[in-house]
């Protein structure tokens, strides 16, 4: 079975490479909303990927909002490969980049804290239906990781009349491995 699958993939690659040489470079925008399913909770995310489509390949950059556990803004490079011709297509995609923390005033670490960008990536498989005007509806599911790195000075002294205190730093490093189910529009 796996040999058959590999053969299909290899054939598809040769076929798409041939198509790539013939096809034009066109701007494409993939915008979707997502349900993020994690170990302990679910959340929503939105995302926009913008770039160019040439044949069955799409490459671009993307960003969005991710509300899972800690509000973050990912910024990433996106790559997508379509399979099969026609209005209905399967595709695989990957996003890779960095993730910025967007602190809320209700966050415990809001005061006296700084953050560094963490790793962000996603690998997934999707299905898309193309309409007449070159727009399309897409659905995908992928495995996603976002990392959040924060540094916090908690100001340890209980009493307020303390002289300037030496710096005491707490560093937090969180990783969230989730499944993301996306539904969106390609224009």
């Amino acid at each position, binding site marked *: 079975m796996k040999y058959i699958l590999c053969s299909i993939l290899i054939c598809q690659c040769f076929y798409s490479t041939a198509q790539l040489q013939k096809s034009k470079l066109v701007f494409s925008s993939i915008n979707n909303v997502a349900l993020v*399913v*994690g*170990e*302990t909770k679910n959340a929503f995310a939105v995302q926009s990927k913008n770039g160019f489509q040439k044949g069955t390949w799409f490459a671009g950059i993307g960003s969005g909002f991710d509300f899972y*556990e800690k509000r973050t803004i990912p910024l990433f490079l996106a790559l997508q490969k379509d399979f099969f011709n026609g209005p*209905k297509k399967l595709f695989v995609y990957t996003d890779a980049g960095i993730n910025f923390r967007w602190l809320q005033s209700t966050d*415990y*670490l809001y*005061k*006296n804290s700084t953050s560094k960008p963490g790793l962000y990536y996603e690998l*997934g*498989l*999707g*299905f898309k*239906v193309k309409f007449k005007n070159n727009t399309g*509806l897409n*659905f*995908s*599911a*992928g*495995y996603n990781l976002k990392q959040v790195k924060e540094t916090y000075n*908690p*100001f*340890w*002294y*209980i*009493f*307020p*009349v*303390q*002289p*300037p*205190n*030496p710096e*005491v*730093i*707490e*560093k*937090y*490093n*969180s*990783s*969230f*491995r*989730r*499944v993301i*189910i996306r*539904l969106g529009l390609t224009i």
Partner: protein
Amino acid sequence: MLKLIFKPCIYAAIVSLVLLQSCLKDTSSKTYNIFSPIYTTKAAARSGVKNEAPQPVVSPGKIFVLGNYLFLNEVDKGIHVIDNSNPSNPINKYFIPIPGNVDLAVKGNVLYADMYRDLLAIDISNPLNVQVKKVVENTFPQRVYTNGFVGDTSLIITGWVKKDTTIEYNNNNYYAFDNAVLLSSSSGGSSSSLNAPVGIAGSMARFTLMNNYLYTVTNMELNVIDITQPMNPVFNNMVQVGWRIETIYPFKNNLFIGSSTGMFIYSTTDPAHPSLVSQFSHVTACDPVIADGDNAYVTLRTGTTCAGSVNQLDILNIQDLQAPTLVKSYLLSNPHGLSKSGNHLFICDGAGGLKVFDASDANNLQLLQTIANINAYDIITLNNNAIVVAADGVYQYDYSNPSGLVLRSKIGL
């Protein structure tokens, strides 16, 4: 069309959720410092209180001035004694190691300092032979360690061993101060005969001297300590003041006490039994206070430990001590200690630096100068010399021209 999309979609979603279920994981690690205490016996710590070679100023705290000498607290470590005859060239003369020390006062040849819960009377008449003359035990019972480190009757903590530690946890519980040692501080103490010269403390002080009494504040109380015999301080009595008492400032037979909820004025007409004259409430904030003839100046600030959301200077009219009234509030960055010299008001505005105001009209303060780039904490102004304690050391400025302070020297990092 919908059928075309949703069937495979739903299959794909279900399959991916099932296959990847075991891969769903939230992990968090927290890296922080664990401080393990180094214990010594009280007897050993007390016998170690003597003059030692001068040490660098690393973590400056409260400051006290007497004559040409500065007494500078090194937080929880001891006291630097600095010859300040020439403010442009202060000389660090010697260091008195006092574990747990945060407050001090000096009268004549007696230095009063806290050593965690105890008050020490230290004879400094001979700089080559500094000696503890009296220990008033348990004067500051609220000075305790939390999170497992409880004060002991025979042991005290003289230092800490710092170690980086990383722990893993899955519930993102940032409220867990795992194994952290939180040190709470209250303090008190000071001394001497009626004619002995009395020094000047900064506005963040919790010790003050008046007549033959040393007054100290703790979190809730005003302690009255009789120092008629300077080397032999005697705990006289304790007055319940309120919650979260922070600072004490003496002015004309009155004690102005700052707390996080308001300012209290106590009369020392009967010095052994201070009595409440009035109270002025304000929003919750940390609030050192000073006073002159007509007004009291209260700085309110926020901070993790202070709570509240206000950073400002309140000027109160105290011509009628029994009914202080608010004159005006001025917004500031994060004000701490303050001092007044003539018509000029000096405010340590935390990371906002040191600010100098023309305060001839309380209704219309004029900012004359801001010295930025220092994290100013407390200040004493004396004879055109402003002694400023900041996070990185002690700065001295010539303020003969209050609009153009001139840096004379810096002690510290």
